[in-house]
């Protein structure tokens, strides 16, 4: 660990004060905006990360290719690219391929090759299999069977950009100020138990689901084994990866709403359950019986996103921070309120949600469907 301390603390004292930083902002009207504010906000929490991982997820980014799956791939070797491109041509209709634009950035050392592909699912999928299932299986196949290649983004009209470095340097490296989206999440990493490498940076992704995480999933082993039964292979060597696959399983495949998913990942304690109404007790007990292996143990704050929705959630005793800000149609989630205030000093509301209580931003489609789902009456301050 000496190396890490030298990397992150130039002042020569022996402290490593960091933790991860997470930030998300969403315009619930669907208006697309550039990366400037999200980059400033995550850079403001520079001291929470240590240069061993930074990343972003952007939704609404590829309107010209919105109906195609956008794959972002990292290659450790040129040969890996040839293998993967051969594989993609065999398994998809390849609409477009290009190298992801990058620029030389001090602080970004020895990056992999990064390419993106816009893909259409042809007639190769089996009877009854959904396009999403077909694509998720192909992602797992590339990650586990092809040497030196990782799919780090695989959804439609969204993209993940990540690597080893501070988040603001990663943003510069990937020229993120030239993209627009209606929902951005950002992460600065301070790896605790697992290596700092390009694939291990956040966000973690499958299809259009992304997760950024601050904390430690100590139930990783149980969660991982459970997810393997459903075809998910954990290949990114870090605990946070299981959260992305868990939300894909629960929210996409099992079609559960986040209010239920929150009770699976951060369930109420047994004595709280005993004080609930009979119907609620039955629900909570059933969830703990059926999905007990997806309980996330240990401290966490996550921001989960997919097309049209951004969700903030902490563990039930809130061992990691989350602050919420709202200004008109904009929802902000952050490890620290100061980063929200930096880009929006005059918030309508700012508050700190209770542990285990999801904060949800949804695209506002009508008056009946409000953009930000308030958990309860909140104090304005």
């Amino acid at each position, binding site marked *: 660990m000496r190396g890490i301390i030298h990397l992150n603390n130039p002042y020569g004292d022996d402290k490593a004060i960091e933790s991860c930083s997470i930030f998300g902002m969403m315009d619930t009207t669907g208006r697309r905006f550039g990366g400037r504010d999200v980059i400033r906000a995550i850079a403001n929490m520079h001291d929470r990360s240590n240069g061993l991982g930074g990343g972003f997820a952007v939704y609404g980014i590829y309107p010209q290719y919105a109906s195609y799956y956008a794959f972002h791939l990292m290659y450790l070797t040129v040969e890996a690219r040839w293998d993967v491109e051969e594989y993609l041509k065999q398994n998809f209709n390849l609409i477009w391929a290009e190298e992801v634009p990058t620029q030389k950035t001090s602080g970004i050392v020895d990056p992999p090759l990064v390419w993106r592909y816009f893909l259409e699912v042809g007639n190769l999928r089996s009877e009854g299999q959904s396009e999403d299932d077909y694509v998720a299986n192909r992602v797992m196949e590339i990650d586990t069977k092809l040497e030196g290649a990782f799919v780090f983004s695989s959804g439609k009209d969204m993209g993940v950009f990540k690597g080893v470095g501070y988040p603001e340097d990663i943003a510069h490296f990937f020229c993120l100020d030239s993209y627009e989206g209606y929902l951005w999440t950002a992460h600065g990493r301070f790896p605790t138990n697992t290596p700092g490498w390009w694939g291990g940076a956040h966000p973690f992704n499958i299809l259009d689901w992304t997760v950024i995480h601050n904390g430690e999933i100590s139930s990783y082993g149980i969660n991982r084994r459970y997810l393997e039964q459903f075809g998910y292979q954990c290949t990114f060597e870090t605990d946070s990866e299981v959260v992305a696959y868990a939300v894909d399983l629960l929210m996409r495949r099992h079609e559960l709403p986040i209010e239920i998913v929150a009770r699976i990942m951060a369930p109420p304690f047994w004595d709280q359950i005993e004080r609930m109404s009979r119907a609620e007790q039955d629900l909570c007990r059933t969830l703990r019986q059926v999905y007990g292996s997806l309980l996330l143990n240990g401290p966490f704050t996550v921001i989960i996103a997919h097309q049209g929705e951004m969700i903030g959630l902490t563990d039930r005793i*809130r061992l990691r*921070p989350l*602050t919420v800000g709202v200004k008109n149609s904009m929802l902000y989630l952050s490890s620290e309120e100061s980063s929200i205030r930096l880009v929006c000093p005059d918030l309508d509301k700012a508050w*700190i949600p209770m542990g285990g209580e999801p904060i949800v931003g949804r695209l506002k489609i009508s008056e009946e469907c409000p953009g930000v789902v308030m958990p309860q009456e909140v*104090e304005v301050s």
Partner: protein
Amino acid sequence: MAANRRQDSQFKVDATGLHYRRLNQLLRQAVADGAERIELQNVYGQRYIGTDLDREVEIEIQGTPGNDLGSFMNGPRITVYGNAQDGCGNTMNDGQIIIHGHAGDILGFSARGGKIFVRGDVGYRAGIHMKEYQDKKPVLVIGGTAQDFLGEYMAGGMLILLGLNLREGEYHRASFIGTGMHGGVIYLRGSVDQFQLGREVGVAEIDEVDCSNLDRLVGEFASYFSYNAAEILKGRFIKLLPLWLRPYGNLYVY
């Protein structure tokens, strides 16, 4: 960037873009140069503001100070015209912190002395492991409500929760209040159920000594935030005390 000196030992610092190490250097320098009043503007997340300052001085903060505001502080009075983040008052020894908005988690963490007044709500674990020794008794006064684990492992000092933003009949939402508490006292205005309390605390009615404590500290709270102290004191208060001074004294004794 340097602190601008004005007349009568007043200093003003524009914190825009300043790293916390530089900002705290400027504060130390200003205090060494005889500052009586320091105004910090455009503060966005700089940590440890006021740390290791060890005499009385007024520090006013416009913006959102970062984590561990006033940690290890010994004497200054910090006023925040906004919200505070996590770890405010960490291990502070003396002085006051006055927050006009809300505060985040672990407010007054391990405080050994001084007073913290928060107008709004506070996050998880406010007052965790506050302690006292002889005349050093830290005080937290919270105008709103608190989240879980209020006064966790509290070893001394005084924690007052006023619940001024609760509606008629509304209970405080915090659970695990006073879990592991083994010293000090919590005064609570507003209602809680027994299940919201930790196993280590008991409930008592307030006595004359408590009333004089409350008069004094609620009076001070009210003076900072323009409340009517008498109105607040009309509410019903209960007192939470630790049932044992060493709840786990026998845990490892076979």
